[in-house]
Each structure stands twice: as structure tokens, then as C-alpha cells.
């Protein structure tokens, strides 16, 4: 499915744009097989690999504090020409270079798989939030934001963005078997660079919401317009909703007309 293809292309442009701005861009390649990905890692990955929390005093580096900026989203496609496998791109400083710092954090995950569709969307979205699955890496439980910590212990063991990318690839490929290939882009260079990602993220979130709505509709629930969870065709309030929609249409037309005439 091509829903996110345009945004995958935008990400390629974004990375080139960052190179053009003179940002430090590093690329790491890694194996595609989840088993091999895990073999190379300095920390444990998988359910209950960590307690899920890192205390303030044990923190080596903080990522995505709201003061310095955070943005994360996920794109999926079935087009092999758009997403390769095992490529990790880091724009900005790495973990080891940032002891005691609070870095801005952008994370864009791009996954590909034949037959990957809207049915997998929710699982893919949820897998971004790793909970207790990576030793020495914590994502705070706050909605709408990717805000993390890397522990001193993990940093000593060699945890860096290469590790994080590989760990995420292993988690995704294990949890959603349809994922055949995956790329990760991490941005830690600058608040503005992360904010620039928000322009893409905003569009992606809108599409994501539409997919979520469609998925729930298929299960019999309309999560956006009706909290009753009933089928419109059997709902006694249908005439009321129909009338409201008509009023909204009339009102929108009126607003458009007013705007058009005031612009003339």
C-alpha cells in the first residue's frame, strides 16, 4: 500500500537537506535477520530485558525532553524501492559523545513488508513504545512524545544509536512478522532540525488517525464522531446526526462564500 510513500520520499529529502546544512550525518548498516541483530548487541533486548525505568541519578543522557524538542513517527510501505533493510542514519551526536547532556530527539522508523497493510498499523505504532524491552534504555510513559533516557551502565557497555536501531529492528521484526525490511533515522543535532520533522509528522498523524478510525469502523465502532459504538443503520438517533451534518455543510458553504466575497 502506498499510503505513506510520499512521506518516505520526504524523509530522503530531509536527510539530504541536513547534509546540505552541514550537519554530521552517519550511517550504519546492520544484518536483516533478527537473530543476528541481537547477537551483536551490548545490551539485552526482549520482554523484561529491563525494569522499564532508569532513575535520574543513573542517567547518562536524556533524549527528547520537551525543552529541547522531540518528534517521532512511523512510516510503512510495501514498495521495495523505498525502504532498504538494516540502514541506520544518525544526524547529530551519538550517545557516547553526550555524557550528561539532554539531547533533542527525532526518531523516524520506516518499515517495509509485502502485504503490510492497515491491519498491522496499530501493532506497528504500538511497537515504537518499547516499555521494558531494551536494557539500559527507557522511554517515559507520556503520550504524544518520545522522551527517553540511556543509563550509565548501558553507555559503559557501549549502547549507542546503532544499538538502539538494531534493537528496534529486532523488536519490530519479531513482533510483526510481515516486516521484512526496516530503516531508522535518529536526529539529535538541533531543536530546529527536530521541529522540521514535525511538519512531516503532522501529516502522518492525520493519516494515522484516519487509519485508526477505519479499523475501528470495521469492528463496528466509530471512535471519532460517535461514542455509542452502534451501527448507524440501526441507531434511532440517525436522523439527528444526519440533520447536524446537513447544518455543518450549510454552515461551511456559508463561511466559504463569506470568505470568497470578502477576498474580492
Amino acid at each position, binding site marked *: 500500500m502506498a499510503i505513506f510513500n510520499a512521506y518516505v520520499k520526504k524523509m530522503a529529502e530531509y536527510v539530504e537537506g541536513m547534509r546540505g546544512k552541514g550537519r554530521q550525518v552517519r550511517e550504519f548498516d546492520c544484518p536483516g535477520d533478527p537473530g543476528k541483530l541481537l547477537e551483536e548487541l551490548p545490551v539485552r533486548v526482549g520482554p523484561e530485558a529491563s*525494569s*522499564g*525505568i532508569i*532513575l*535520574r541519578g543513573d542517567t547518562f543522557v536524556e533524549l527528547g525532553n*520537551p*525543552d529541547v524538542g522531540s518528534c517521532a513517527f512511523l512510516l510503512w510501505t510495501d514498495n521495495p524501492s523505498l525502504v532498504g533493510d538494516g540502514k541506520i542514519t544518525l544526524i547529530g551526536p551519538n550517545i557516547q559523545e553526550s555524557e550528561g547532556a539532554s539531547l533533542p530527539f527525532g526518531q523516524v522508523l520506516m518499515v517495509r513488508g509485502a502485504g503490510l497493510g492497515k491491519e498491522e498499523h*496499530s501493532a506497528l505504532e*504500538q511497537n515504537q*513504545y518499547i*516499555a*521494558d524491552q531494551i536494557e539500559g534504555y*527507557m*522511554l*517515559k*510513559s*507520556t*503520550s*504524544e*512524545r518520545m522522551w527517553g533516557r540511556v543509563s550509565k551502565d548501558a553507555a559503559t557497555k557501549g549502547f549507542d544509536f546503532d544499538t538502539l536501531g538494531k534493537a528496534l529492528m529486532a523488536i519490530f521484526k519479531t513482533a510483526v512478522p510481515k516486516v521484512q525490511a526496516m530503516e531508522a533515522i535518529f536526529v539529535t543535532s538541533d531543536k530546529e532540525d527536530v521541529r522540521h520533522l514535525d511538519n512531516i509528522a503532522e501529516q502522518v498523524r492525520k493519516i494515522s*488517525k484516519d487509519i*485508526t478510525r477505519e479499523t*475501528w469502523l470495521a*469492528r*463496528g*465502532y466509530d*471512535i*471519532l*464522531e460517535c*461514542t*455509542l*459504538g452502534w451501527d448507524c443503520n440501526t441507531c434511532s438517533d440517525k436522523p439527528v446526526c444526519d440533520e447536524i451534518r446537513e447544518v455543518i455543510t450549510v454552515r461551511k458553504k456559508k463561511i466559504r462564500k463569506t470568505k470568497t466575497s470578502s477576498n474580492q
Partner: protein
Amino acid sequence: MALIDKHPELARYITEQGWFEFLREQTLAMIEIPEMQLQVKTLDSLLKMYGRILDAVENDKPFVSSYYCLAPELYTAMDLPYYMVMQTPFLASSVPYLLTDIDAAEEMGLGNDLCTAIRLSIYYVEANLSPLPTCALNLLYPCDGAPLLHEVIKRNERWRNIPMFACDPPYYSDERSLDYFADEMRKMAKFVETNTGAKLDMDKLKETLEYSNQMFQLWDEYNQLRRNVPSPHGWGIGAPQCFSQAWVYEAGTPQGVEWFKKLVEIAELNVKNGVGPVPEEKIRLFWFDLLPFGWVFEFLPWLEEEWGAVMVMDMFGNFPYTMIDTSSEEEIWRGLAKRNLFDAPMVRQARGVADNFANDIARIVKDFKIDAVVWPGHMGHKDGAATVGIMRETCRDLSVPFVHLGLDLFDKRYSTPDQIKDKMSQFFRAMGLG
């Protein structure tokens, strides 16, 4: 002339103040327990609020009635006393006259199908048991009951000449809605200025919000600690106290910041020492609503003692908050709009789209290693009752047991604590928990 003779509407308020002073004395006896030091400070904050309202009435100073989700930092910045119209039901675990009040509300003709928190609040206004404010800020959301309370207040003979304002809430949570609600909050602040004579100094508001941000950041830190196994705290301390400090009694004050610092310190120590509220934590619960304030002591200790079931997270402890950007006036209002309309507990879930019910469950279950989700099914939360199907399906997707109880969070006669204990026990047994 005694204050109470001149202002009979304060009779209950003064009794309540005395009750909380008594509770404070009782809590002081356990002061060597670190958590009890926090409870005492919470009661101090509460009593300070009572004192400020009584002082305002006695000395003819302005004060407002409002709600937690109407930017309480504004009143702190304006140095204006405020109280929550719906306060007493939320304090129900501590007040001894709750059931009598519920009966009195029913005798007054208020339908017992109406949310008990709304019903009680209507009763307190109609029975002249709420302080008469200089101006009143009301709510048109998140549920149908809130505007009903607003209508009653508007028509009450003692209240109807009090200037009133209610922000108009948009349905969606997009940028357009955010800008719209930010404007509503601006209008609200202007209304308070006009009707109380207090002035809103933007520099003072900025300072207040920076304290508020610190409080919320520390609250977030605390919440992360509750992800630990065992959770450093259960139902006894957590959401209700955090909520009351950040949203009601100490919104944007240095005292509030200190309170949260202490809370985080205590919880960190518990995490390091592997200490939790029970000797062996067996079940980690997500209670997706308010605590059952009317019978909290008859039920929640039992969950911990009988089943080792710890309430790791609940609706009011959940942390979806965004820090408010204080770099410009524009951002301040947008930040206030977001926090108060999109993030505030219950408003977040009950107003607007049902998506938040599903998303909050999915994230909390995963992050907090939840073993079971409890939708208490409070008789007043009809908005949530309509989304039970969505919650149940979400839990099925996550393979986490879900139970819908059916109770009244304030009236223990609706479903008795024994009935609820029985339901919970059957649920735990059937799911192989505990």
C-alpha cells in the same frame, strides 16, 4: 456578629474545615512514616484554601468558584482565592456525612440516576451549603451532568446574580480547536479581572506556570517510578494527592514544587529498596476512573491485603501532560488550553473522541506491566459506559483481562463494597490472577 450568622452558607464549610483539622491531628500521630509527612502537607494545603475562602468572605475580598480544569494557575498568579464547586464529593473518603447528604439530595427531588458527584454539588448549592463567590466559572463539559449543574447554579436564587462564565469546548483536538479554546481561556481571564478587580500580570503568570511546569515534571518522574515492580506506592498515596496539589491547592506555587520533590525522593528510595505497599505484589491493576472516594477505606486496603492487588495506575494519575511553553503570551494561552482541555483527567477521556480511551489503555498496560484493567462503571460516567466495547476490544487485543464492575464511586449502597469484593474475587479467580 459571628461569621456564620452573617453567612449561613458557610456553616458546612466551617464544619468541613474542622473535620480536616481533626484529620490532620490524626495523621500527625504517624508522622514518622515519610508518606504521612506528605499527607500532612496535603492537608495543610487544603486547610490553607479553606482559610483563604473564609478570610475572603469575612473581609469582603473577592474569590471565585471554579474547577480544576479551568487553569487554576491563573488564580495563583492573580492571588485570588478559589474553591472547586464539586470539592466535597471528591473529598468524600474523609467526610463523615456523605450518605446523609446523598439522601438529602434525593429528598430534594434530584434523580438518583444523575451522577452522584453532580447531584451532591447541586444539593450543596440548593441547600445553601456552598460559599457564595464573587464570580463563578462553570463547565459545559466533559459530561452532560456538568452543564446541568451550571444551569442549576444559574437559576438558584442566591447564585443567579453572581456573574458567571463558562468556556465553550470544541469537540476535536486539532490545532483549530486549540486556538479556539485558547481564546476562550483569554476571555475567561478577562471576565475574572472585570468581576473581581484582580489583575493578571503576565510576568507573574509566567512565573507561576514555570513552578507549575516543575510540579508536572516531578509528577511525571514520580509516575515513571510507579512502573517499577513492585510499585513504590499503591492506592494510599499517588494520584489523588498529586492531582490535588497540581490542579487544586498548590497550582503553580513553590510549596507545590517542594511537595513533589519530597514525593519523588520517597518513591525513589522505595524503588531502590524494592519496597512496595504490600509484602508481595501479585496483581498490578489499572483502575480506569476516579478512586471510589465514598468507600475507599472499605475496599482498596482489602484489594491489597486479600489479593496483593496494587492499584499501579488510575485515570487521575495517568500523565498525558504537556509542559507549557512560557516563551510568549500566545504560547502560554495555547499551552493552558492544551493542558486544561486535552490533557486534564476525565475531560481528556469524556469530551470529544473515544480514541483516548483505547490509546491510554494500550500505553498504560504496556508501560506499567498491568495484569488487569478495571473499568469501575461509575453510574454517572455514561460517556465512558458507551465506550466499554472499545475498551474491552482494546484489552482483548492486548491480551489483558478486563472487568466492568458497575458501581457508584460515592454511594456505597448502589453496589455494596461486599458485592464489589465478590465480583473482583471471581474475576481474579477466573483469570488465574493472584
